[in-house]
């Protein structure tokens, strides 16, 4: 079944489309570009949601200020990259700055109410309300766009034929290189997280903590330190995503709520606390959003939430949830 689907998908991507197919679902260029858009958006969603799910998995803390971390990362990255002229530096500083902020939040706020999950969640709502307002005060209502390095700008030709003209000339599909770069970053981060969790001592502790927090503490591990570390990684990833995503699109007030909701849906669909779940959820939601936008824009936005409600109805703990 999965093989057949994969074969059909490959054929759809690489074959020259016959006329009846074009009549049925439109041009190949639209389909392939939308497919790539979905994949790259999924990459961005994964970057944001992986930190969110990691924090939840370990601490049972639904950090509803996660979107604020994303937006703040974007703004900090913007300030750094425009002042230094180095986009890469912007990315690095955004990651580090948000990791530090995340660690501080964990120590100052969340440690005070360890185990009080609901209260922690409500606190994050309060933080996100204030953060959004203060960021509006600092950066105003304008939209910021980054200038990525020249090497990442512009479109590349994919080895995929769009149409064959009557003259026999083949028109290849062009695609913005930066978006492929986003997908690449997401894969690197995903693999990195997998290695961290599965091949390192720290990762073992985190996984043990996800399965059984009290047991982990009982083994003499400094749980507090692990918590701070995970919070820092999660927040740092949100900050990193702020710059990466802000460069692909833009940063403006309201993006915090947008990415918070996206992360929520992604992890609810994928299963709370699971990195692979976040990847699957991000793929589903990213593709649904882009195909919705291209093929039925009116209800495209509703589609993602419908997927979520269906998943909840069938499997309340999410696709990969335990």
């Amino acid at each position, binding site marked *: 079944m999965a093989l057949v689907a994969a074969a059909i998908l490959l054929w759809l991507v690489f074959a020259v489309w016959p006329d009846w197919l074009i009549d049925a679902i*439109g041009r190949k*260029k*639209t389909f392939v*570009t*939308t497919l790539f*858009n*979905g994949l790259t*958006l999924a990459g961005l969603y994964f970057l944001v949601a992986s930190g969110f799910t990691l924090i939840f998995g370990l601490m049972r803390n639904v950090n509803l200020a996660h979107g604020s971390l994303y937006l703040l990362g974007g703004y900090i990255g913007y300030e750094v990259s425009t002042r230094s002229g180095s986009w890469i530096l912007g990315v690095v500083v955004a990651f580090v700055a948000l990791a530090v902020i995340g660690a501080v939040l964990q120590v100052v706020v969340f440690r005070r109410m360890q185990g009080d999950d609901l209260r922690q969640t409500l606190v994050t709502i309060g933080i996100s309300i204030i953060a959004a307002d203060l960021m*509006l005060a600092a950066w*105003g*209502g*304008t*939209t910021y*766009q980054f*200038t990525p390095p020249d090497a990442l*700008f*512009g*479109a590349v030709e994919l080895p995929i034929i769009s149409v064959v003209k009557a003259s026999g000339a083949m028109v290849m599909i*062009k*695609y*913005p290189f*930066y*978006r492929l770069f986003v997908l690449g970053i997401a894969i690197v981060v995903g693999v990195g997280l997998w290695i961290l969790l599965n091949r390192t001592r720290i990762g073992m502790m985190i996984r043990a903590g996800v399965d059984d927090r009290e047991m982990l503490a009982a083994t003499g591990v400094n749980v507090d330190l692990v918590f701070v570390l995970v919070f820092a990684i999660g927040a740092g990833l949100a900050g990193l995503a702020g710059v990466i995503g802000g460069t*692909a*699109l*833009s940063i*403006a*007030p*309201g*993006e915090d709520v*947008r990415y918070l909701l996206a992360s929520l849906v992604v992890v609810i669909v994928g299963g709370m606390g699971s990195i692979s779940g976040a990847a699957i959820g991000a793929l589903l939601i990213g593709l649904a959003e*882009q*195909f919705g*936008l*291209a*093929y039925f*824009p*009116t209800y*495209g*936005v509703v589609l993602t939430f419908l997927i979520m409600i269906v998943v909840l109805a069938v499997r309340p703990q999410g696709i990969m949830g335990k």
Partner: protein
Amino acid sequence: MKYSNLLMGASLAALMSASGVYAESLKVGAVATLEGAFAALGEDGLRGIQLALNEFDGEVAGYTIELISGSTDASPDSAVRAVRKLVEQDGAQIVIGPLSGSEGIAIRDYSKTQPEVTFLNGASAAQDTTLRETSDNFFRFSTEGAQWMAGLGEYVYTEKGYRTVAVVAEDYSFPYTQVFGFLEPFCRMGGTSPQDARFYVPLGNKDYSSVIAALPDEVDAIYVALGGADAVNFLSQYEQSGGDLPLIGGSITMDQSVLGSKGSQRDYIIGTPAAGPISDTWDDPRWQAFVTDYQETFPDGFPSPSLFAHGYYINAKAAFLALEEVSGDLSDGGAAYREVLAKLSFETPTGMVHLDERHQAVGDIFLTEVVEGPNGGLLNKTISVTPQVTQTLGLGYEEFLAYGPVSRENPVCE
């Protein structure tokens, strides 16, 4: 002890002066979006009122004008709450505002419950506010979204030779109004815009790449009605994806905030036509004087007055001119005042304005085109001025109503 005496003295003095002024002051409410993402635009609207007030030195017919502002978050519910406070609590007899279309309709509905209070529009530009279910005490001296497109459809049909256009617009009433204003003459002349080439994107969407991929190749141009941030996103993504169709702009698509935004030089939008109620670079002395006045009064403002400052200015100016004519006398519940308003005709920085029978402004509209400026930047050049555009775009009222309310599909134009 000494300190508290001082304080008491000061507050007493304030009290006395306040009551002294009270006898001769007139309360005017100003409703604008002062919170949320559009706060900067609301503040510019208030600057417009201030400019008008400065022309009267803050005093009309011997009455000191006391401006009380009310804030909205751009939602109609918040607009009604703000205006209710201004009228029912603060006792404003004249209210100027709001900023956005659906707020305007909400305030117009509220105005029907307060027949003794006179409402003037701010910068809101929804068509229905003064077309259907109109209110006797709601006046709009600024033009609206469909009027703003005047001349554009004809221009791209005859001068540019476009016959078929695709549409990319945000999915709510203001862009519908703009699309309508653009397509109505365009299609009447013989142009088409197939329904499946119209893309209405949910408000707040920043990712246009899939929409761009779905745009048909077999059109002559793309009509883009997106606001500030959305426009910037669309343009940069359109460029990145190698798009090469010519564009046509809505009233807030090709404005200075978009043209002046940082990033790569968008040479491909040179020659893009657009239309709207103002033109930044219009060389007419009336407009130039207004811009200079704005820049000198508000060094922290925008480089040039936005269409929000312009809209609030015109409506405030009308409010004060009419107030002067009735010598500030609103004792009859403002009936005489509203009679004067309805007949008022005056000179604005953008030409003469008067009202039609539904209290909607008839005014001049500017057709512009993006050109390369003297120092390499992009700016809008004024191509022509369409004089005295009516709300029904030159058609009769009944004939115009036959189109029905603006929507995604209106006009049909296949």
